[in-house]
């Protein structure tokens, strides 16, 4: 890997998040370089969603977060991070159910529109090219979409912001195997557009297949990390997450 020559998008060190007195994450360090897909895998309850919420400013966190070369202060706000090109596709999708697919996408470009960029029609055409299914459903209400379509809409809406860093929280959760395959194909395709992706997944096999680098998160700490090819061959990962061992 040519580690040095790509600029760092996000670098986190010694990150801790607490819910009241319970510490959900401690001493997390991770790094994402431009154009990379980095994945965080781990079991349920390891703190994966907490990690993304903290990075997005939805939860207060302690530690150093450097995004686009700027150290983030304690009062990081979701809105200002969105303005700086960070987007999160949350696990629950958080769509606007009583609005059409088109309006959901349009609101994805809200911040850019407010900043005076009026190229949302063009961006929407690109999103429709990536997700042709959404073009067919453009006038349908988001609440009436199937699970796979909802995930596509959530990703499309995030892409409307033309993000520098796209964070995906369990995009395969609750979807049929064929749709999961489609979603991961699209994630791999997005990499070609130059966006950096932080992918949080329980589906470790699929995540490691598309990612460049991976972290294993267990009970709030990073227990393993490495290039995804190496992680996929690590006996501990195979035993716990890839299910090849099957000797329990």
């Amino acid at each position, binding site marked *: 890997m040519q580690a040095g020559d790509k600029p760092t998008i996000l670098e986190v060190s010694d990150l801790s998040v607490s819910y009241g007195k319970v510490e959900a994450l401690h001493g997390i360090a991770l790094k994402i370089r431009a154009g990379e897909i980095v994945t965080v895998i781990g079991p349920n309850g390891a703190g994966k969603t907490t990690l993304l919420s903290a990075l997005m400013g*939805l939860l207060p966190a302690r530690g150093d977060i450097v995004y686009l070369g700027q150290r983030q202060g304690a*009062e990081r706000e979701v809105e200002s991070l969105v303005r700086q090109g960070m987007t999160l596709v949350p696990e629950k999708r958080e769509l*606007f159910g009583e*609005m059409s697919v088109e309006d959901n996408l349009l609101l994805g470009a809200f*911040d850019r529109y407010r900043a005076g960029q009026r190229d949302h029609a063009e961006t929407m055409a690109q999103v429709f090219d990536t997700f042709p299914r959404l073009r067919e459903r453009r006038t349908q209400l988001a609440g009436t979409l199937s699970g796979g379509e909802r995930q596509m809409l959530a990703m499309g809406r995030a892409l409307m912001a033309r993000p520098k860093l796209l964070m995906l929280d369990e995009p395969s959760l609750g979807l049929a195997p064929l749709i999961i395959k489609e979603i991961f194909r699209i994630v791999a395709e997005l990499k070609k557009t130059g966006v950096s992706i932080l992918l949080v997944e329980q589906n470790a096999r699929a995540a490691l297949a598309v990612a460049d680098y991976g972290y294993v998160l267990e009970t709030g700490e990073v227990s393993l990390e490495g290039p995804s090819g190496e992680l996929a061959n690590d006996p501990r990962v195979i035993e716990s997450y890839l299910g090849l061992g099957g000797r329990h």
Partner: protein
Amino acid sequence: MDLQIALLLGQDGITNGAIYALLSLALVLVFTVTRVIFIPQGEFVAFGALTLASLQAGKLPGTLWLLIALAIAAAAVDIVCALRDGQAQRIPKVLAVNCALPAALAALLSIVPAASLPLALQVVLTLALVVPLGPLLYRLVFQPIAEASVLVLLIVSVSVHVTLSGLALYFFGAEGSRTPAFTDATFEIGDALIQGQTLLVVCASFTLIAALYFFFERTLWGKALRATAMNRTGARLMGISATSAGKLSFSLAALIGAFSGVLISPITTIYYDSGFLIGLKGFVGAIFGGMASYPLAAAGAILVGLLESYSSFWASAYKEVIVFTLIIPVLVWRSLTTRHTEEEE
């Protein structure tokens, strides 16, 4: 009751109903965006009507002092926040945003005799004095507790209502005011005599409702407000800040309230505390729509207006009782027909 009286009462009912409909829309808007049950909505009606009346009487409305005081307080809070974030360079902008309009209005009112201005300009001046109170109240009172429970927000809302109606008594006195009619025209359609003022109120209300519909359906800011109402987290992730959405919804609510006050002040005598009852009737309408549906809220509010008008003919002593008793069957109907959905917050 003969047909002529029935038509007259119907006309009255629809006029009041149109005003209640406007207020019910404001209540639904504020509640869905900020979860505040906006009891002071009616105070904006009273402030609108009484500010216009005192401008016409050649007095300086106390609204100006309230506006200046709130603007200074908001500027002070914003400056403290800017200093805490280490962003002292924001201070001039904060001062300009908060204090420019009140200062301009104070200067204008001290130079120009408002009583001699044409009615349209007096109305504009009234709106300029009353509407900014909405976002200022949001900034000072509701923004710091935006994450509080609906009950806490309601209690604070009641206290704002009590404070504002106390201030209205202080500013405008205990006597009621009635402003001259915008138009003296009358029309005769068959047996019915239609007052130009009535027609004006109904037309203006429906124009404003149509404008609101256009705003919510066709503009990005309108869609952003609806998005915040539907899914607060989702909206924040799009960069729609809860604070801007809250300020915008309070501004619209204040505009609707003040505009309603200007519209009804030639029809009804408005006292410092009249706003509360008017607002509550809008609230009954909003309950029809489950505090969520705009068309149902408006329809319910018009029904409230008609019911009030006809009950004032048959049992005028009980007209308020009849109107507010309506809330019970409506609540029963709503709780029987609405599916209870578990909200994920």
